[in-house]
């Protein structure tokens, strides 16, 4: 039915893609960078293209407030990333934006668990951002 | 003002009857520090002995070197026509007139310059207005001795940029 496996088209160039992200204030890489490096074989050696992550923005908005006590009981987590794709010095994609959102319930009587759930959810959102980024890179690098 | 007037030219015609003499071809009139050059000069003497020189050129070039008694400032200039009244030392420049005096450049349709005292009057013509470029004080001093440094911009009507005193 016309489907073929990703990367099987010659020269999709995804593996060996060099993932660059400048971290001035933190040592732990955000999950998005881990997933991108995992999916592109760590980008070692003869990288033909450079994927430069310009910015990662994790924000949170109060989605709803409990009628009972006015405390926030649902948050909207938003993660956005912007990136450039450069191959042999030429910028194929410039300042591309990807974003994802999740609504998550919040029970402040289980604050430690709620924080752990948010960390886990952020990791999943970053994995989705990685999928969206690599899809755009795939379409841009396709011959 | 007692300097003699000396005139050189390729040809000269003197008419005793009218007292008017005409000089043509590389005409240069010098009188002490003043030096005027052009292509055609007519000198006439009025009945009260007043000497009057009418110079034409493409353009007429004017230069007055600084003299030691300091009252007459050094100038250079040019114009399509020039009238020099020796007695009261006045230069009348007409037509695309330009006068450079201690760093400042004055341009206009008609310029009258009093050699003694350095007073200059400029008037506009039908289309060309009076334009003055004044250098800030510090640079002005240097402008006097050397060549005329502040040659006006090239968009000047006649465009010839020949250093005077050729």
């Amino acid at each position, binding site marked *: 039915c*016309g*489907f*073929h*496996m*990703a*990367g*099987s088209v010659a020269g999709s160039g995804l593996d060996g893609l060099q993932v660059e992200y400048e971290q001035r*204030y*933190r040592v*732990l890489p955000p*999950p998005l960078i881990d*997933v991108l490096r995992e999916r592109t074989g760590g980008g070692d050696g003869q990288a033909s293209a450079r994927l430069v992550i310009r910015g990662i923005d994790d*924000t*949170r*908005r*109060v*989605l*709803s407030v*409990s*009628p*009972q*006590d*006015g*405390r*926030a*009981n*649902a948050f909207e*987590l938003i993660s956005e990333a912007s990136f450039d794709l450069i191959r042999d010095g030429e910028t194929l*994609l410039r300042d591309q934006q990807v974003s994802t*959102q*999740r609504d998550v*319930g919040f029970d*402040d009587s289980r*604050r*430690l*668990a709620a*924080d*752990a*759930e*948010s*960390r*886990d*959810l*952020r990791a999943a959102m970053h994995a989705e951002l990685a999928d969206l980024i690599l*899809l755009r890179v795939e*379409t841009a690098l396709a011959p | 003002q007692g300097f003699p007037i000396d005139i050189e030219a390729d040809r000269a015609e003197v008419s005793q009857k009218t007292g008017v003499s005409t000089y043509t071809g590389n005409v240069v009139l010098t009188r002490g520090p003043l030096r005027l050059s052009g292509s055609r000069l007519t000198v006439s003497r009025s009945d009260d002995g007043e000497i009057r020189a009418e110079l034409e050129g493409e353009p007429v070039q004017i230069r007055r070197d600084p003299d030691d008694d300091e009252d007459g400032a050094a100038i250079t200039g040019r114009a399509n026509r020039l009238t020099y009244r020796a007695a009261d030392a006045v230069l009348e420049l007409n037509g695309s007139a330009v006068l450079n005096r201690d760093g400042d450049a*004055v341009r206009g349709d008609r310029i009258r310059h009093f050699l003694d005292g*350095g007073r*200059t*009057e*400029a*008037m506009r013509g039908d289309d060309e207005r*009076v*334009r*003055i*470029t*004044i*250098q*800030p*004080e510090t640079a002005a001093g240097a402008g006097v001795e050397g060549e005329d440094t502040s040659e006006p911009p090239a968009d000047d009507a006649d465009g010839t940029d020949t250093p005077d005193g050729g």
Partner: protein
Amino acid sequence: GICPLPPGIPAAEPGANAEVTADQAILDGPLATVTGNVRLEQAGQALTAPALEYDGTAQRVIANDGLRYRGRGIQLSAEQADVRLDSGIGEFIGTDYALTTNGGRGQAASVAALGGESYRLTDTTYTTCAGDEPAWQLAADRIELDRNRGRGEAFDTVLRVGGIPLFYTPYLNFPIDDERHTGLLTPTLGHSTDDGAELALPYYINLAPNYDATITPRLLSRRGLQLGGEFRYLHAHHRGEVAAEYLPSDQRFGDDRSLLRANHEGRFGRYLGLQLDATRVSDEAYFEDLGTTLSGTSQSQLQRLLRLTLAAPGVRAAVLAQDYQPVLADTLNNRPDPFERLPAAQISLLTPNRGPQLGLDAELVRFDRNDAVPTRRTDLRPRLLWQHDALGWFVRGEAAYRYTHYQPDTGPTLERDIGSASLDVGLRLRRQMDNGWLQTLEPRLFYLYTGYEDQSALPLFDTAVADLHFHRLFARNRFVGVDRIGDANQLTVGLTTRFIDPASGRDVLSLGLGRVFGFRDLRVNAPVTGVIGYDDQDSDVVATAALKPTQHWESRLALQASPGNDRINRASVRVGYDDGPARHVSLGYRYFRDLRQLPGGTTETLEQVDLRLAWQIDEQWQVINRWNYSLDNRQSVEMLAGVGYRPSCCWATRVAFRRFVRDATGERASALLFQVELTGLGRFGDDIWSLLDRDIVRAGSQFTNLRYR
């Protein structure tokens, strides 16, 4: 933008020489007397006049029968002027002036140019409105404009609005550009039933390019004088801010009120990072009484976290101390406070080789809380991991053993050890459709086996049931946290497909469907009421859909339904149009069955509709609206409706009505908010717009997952 300036003369080219054009000129020594619509240009300044005198040596211009000037940030027409063009020092008499930087303009008996780009205006008016009848205008004996400090100071000033004198003030300070200058920022003047009249005068101090501070005295007529201060620093690898607020003897509260807040993040070289995120208030009702933002007033606990992290190839470790201060101004409910983690040490190791990898996740935490026995929990999880990602397909096999040990200060130790194995296989298929679009199809299977052990005796420190998002179907533990490891013998089947528009690369339509099929009844459950997303064996079905037909339109659906007892447990729908902050509208519906346990044992189900609207209707009118309506309580929870009216380029007003849940008793309160902005002078009244914007908060970096995947 600023109001259109009155017509001025064309600006001058920069250049040291003075260029004069005129009908007639008389030069006598350094003095030039020039007449006949004169134009003079020098050093970026232009001046036109019927006649003027110019002294070349002093570069001084004297014009006595009218002139117009433009340069050094100001344009004006005057009856007389005596100005030195080189230093810009001089005086214009009888002027009509306008500042080309911020559009401030008016008439002044005299404008003294003080050199640089500073001016002293005497007996002057000042407004940023265009036209002869300005909506507002300052009349002052003297106004000092200092372009280097970017500030204007008015002395003995009367503010007239619509021609009516509104108030007199001996001194007024206002910005004349928007750079970071030391000086007073826009004052806020407001009124509320609780605090009475409120006047805040923030003073900004630009200490250095990477240091600044803001001191904010805030007068609350019914409480007292509060002093706030904030210090920010930004270095190559360290940044942060420290803030404090102090309100001595709050008349309505009867005691001192204070807030301390510090956050910092930084790294020492390649591997070591430090992070601090701490907020402390003097009493639980602090934010309710003195909070200014929605995200502030809806917090229930304030975190204090200090964390040192290490990240090197194959090694990630952290040592941290964390506790919380509850800010619930109610004494009646016995809502449990979060446990403190004083200290906690985490380490995650994974051999960075290709092929089979060895990993270890270990955590040692000492939990404490005033009403509980402090307990040290040690959790070790060695694992063997084999993962291979070949773009078109991937496989992840893992076998892990987990040992957890609880050591309370007094009382018996508890232990738990469980083995688990999982296999995760996925395909990434692509198809070029005949209309040129790209379709992706990604089936995924995830088998998980986890042993069973009765954990009902184990304490609950950081564990709960998580919302069943799509990715949770592929989690190795259906609980979040360490205190419960869900037994499992299950297979998760998941499928996602996306339709990509080749032109923009945008995923126009994305669909996801998944479910966990259990081969055995589930025996471990957390003693928490409410939806856990699983029935006896299988999980709820989770479906997600996202449609982005254009760059601005987006609609999202997430559904979690239990086929077993045929009901929906979670549903969340959002349709929105977003084209920037001034053109945004979105409608959302959320249904969370048994979201959380309320004091008194009942569980709260959340079913709410929310509308968010910020729309610039035309040049003048803007509408903002935010509205949360709770369907099960059949009442609006949070409502903010406002209108912004900007009739001219120099003033705007905003009126908003807000109805919100005031405190933990669920009591409602409403407030009418009013704000006037005189562009270029200041904003007065409640800061309505930031109430909306500032509810988007940057998530702290403690949200970075330490463990390797």
